[in-house]
């Protein structure tokens, strides 16, 4: 197994130890159970922004804990949702008195575990809201599937909501912002290679030297279609067009209703992109694709957005939400207002994302 690891059973612990050793000024790692909070402790009077999910997507989420982004992150086992008690303890450690917003990627496990965590925290008197991110257009409908996966939009939402939380936005407004940003975002991913989870030691799928997978998620799972490997222009065009021409998307969301004191389901519809939209464009490496190739993707992606009358006002290019050492990339486009752009430009200082301070 081509990995820089020791015993597969200790991978997460040791990598977190390394992370703690590297960034004692930024983060504090709790072991047993695992959660990562800001080195400076909770932000008094501000909503605590928390996320979490299976490990293997680094720098997400632990690398995004710090000023202007997350207050805490819960790493699960590799590709496995963390558990409610972990999330609950992270919420208690990060809570600054103004409630907690959990950013939850839409996977059956993550959603269920974060719901249970929210219930535990609320039983402790902490106000908690869960907003689910589901931006992956590779999953077509929500009626016959577990719904769209939460992928690249998560990173952008953590940055933007993190800036808003830093500025003191209250839980309700922050939840609205988070929901809006998710509704404004769509993503699509592809893989040239599979990846190897340390405990299994072999690739999660076999793929020929001349093949690729389109419509993958971030867990080494096969995508929606296997094809002959194409040029970057063809790949970037297919992905961008899938995102831009994706129609209205409707699914049922579940959020906590603080007046009724219960989970309430609502039907929510995302509108398609339209000419004149301003977007943040995010070209992401799945871990094994170098940034040089991402620039090749960006080039064609921008050609396509230009042609559609979509204006890229900000971008992010690099390995931010990965699937271990998988080769491949994803594209995320998120429609933004001027106010959102200001949040994007606001200072951020985390192990994985830094600017403005």
């Amino acid at each position, binding site marked *: 197994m081509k990995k820089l690891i020791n015993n597969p059973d200790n991978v997460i612990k040791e990598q977190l130890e390394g992370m703690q050793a590297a960034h004692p000024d930024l983060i504090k790692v709790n072991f047993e159970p695992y959660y990562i909070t800001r080195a400076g402790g909770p932000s008094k009077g501000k909503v605590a922004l928390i996320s979490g999910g299976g490990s293997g997507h680094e720098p997400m989420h632990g690398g995004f804990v710090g000023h202007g982004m997350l207050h805490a992150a819960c790493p699960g086992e590799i590709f496995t*949702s*963390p558990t409610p008690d972990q999330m609950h303890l992270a919420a208690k450690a990060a809570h600054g008195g103004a409630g907690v917003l959990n950013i939850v990627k839409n996977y059956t496990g993550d959603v269920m575990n974060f719901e249970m965590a929210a219930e535990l925290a609320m039983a402790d008197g902490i106000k908690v809201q869960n907003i689910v991110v589901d931006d992956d257009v590779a999953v077509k409908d929500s009626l016959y599937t577990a719904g769209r996966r939460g992928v690249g939009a998560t990173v952008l939402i953590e940055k933007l909501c993190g800036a808003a939380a830093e500025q003191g936005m209250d839980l309700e407004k922050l939840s609205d912002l988070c929901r809006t940003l998710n509704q404004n975002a769509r993503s699509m991913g592809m893989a040239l290679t599979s990846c190897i989870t340390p405990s299994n030691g072999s690739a999660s799928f076999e793929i020929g030297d001349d093949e690729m997978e389109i419509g993958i998620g971030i867990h080494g799972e096969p995508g929606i279609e296997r094809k002959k490997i194409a040029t970057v222009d063809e790949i970037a065009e297919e992905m961008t067009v899938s995102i831009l021409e994706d129609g209205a998307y409707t699914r049922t969301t579940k959020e906590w209703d603080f007046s009724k004191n219960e989970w309430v389901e609502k039907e929510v519809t995302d509108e398609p992109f339209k000419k004149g939209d301003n977007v943040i464009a995010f070209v992401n490496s799945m871990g094994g694709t170098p940034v040089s190739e991402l620039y090749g993707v960006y080039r064609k992606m921008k050609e396509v957005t230009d042609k559609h009358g979509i204006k890229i006002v900000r971008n992010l290019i690099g390995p931010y939400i990965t699937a271990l050492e998988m080769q491949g990339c994803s594209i995320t486009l998120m429609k933004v207002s001027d106010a959102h752009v200001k949040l994007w430009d606001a200072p951020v200082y985390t192990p994985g994302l830094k600017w403005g301070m």
Partner: protein
Amino acid sequence: MITKQQVLDWLRKSSDVLEENRQYLTKLDTAIGDADHGNNMYRGFNKVKSQLDDHADKDIGAILKAVAMTLISTVGGASGPLYGTFFLQAGTKMAGKAELDGDSLAVMFRAGVDGVKMRGKAQPGDKTMIDVLEPVAQAIENDIKEGKSVSDTLHHAVEVAEKGVADTIPLIAKKGRASYLGERSKDHQDPGATSSMMIIKALSESVG
């Protein structure tokens, strides 16, 4: 009658069989999921096993609830809350019991399965553990109603569970990760259905 000792036995046997099949379950999950189901089940039930000695003074309901808490806090993923809910609901219904007769067994199983259905919103045919759990719950209810012994009921439950597992193979998944694959999820056996079958088999073997 299922004794408390047999319940503890069941948990130990479940843990053993899930450990033996760790690779196998993970391999099933590799094809249509994210390659962790065997590892998840092993991690959870290994912890359950390590705590069996702590249950000496507890009734069956309390034991099952303790199992639930352990699974919820160690398994993660989808199967953690689902199996956690199964044992939590089953344990709640069995509160105070030192042994289980046929009716209790049926009630326990139905409560657990309904819990999983509520939590995960899956229906039979969605290619999940529900394709094993629901027919097994029904078979147990029927067999007990028809006066079958606990032992016979469980032997029959194993057959139903095995059929449930096989039935998942041609299905297109509608819940869980496998649903992302659409048509490509066909011709693969569901890992969660498989682990459910193993746990049911462990119960039958513990009772005899």
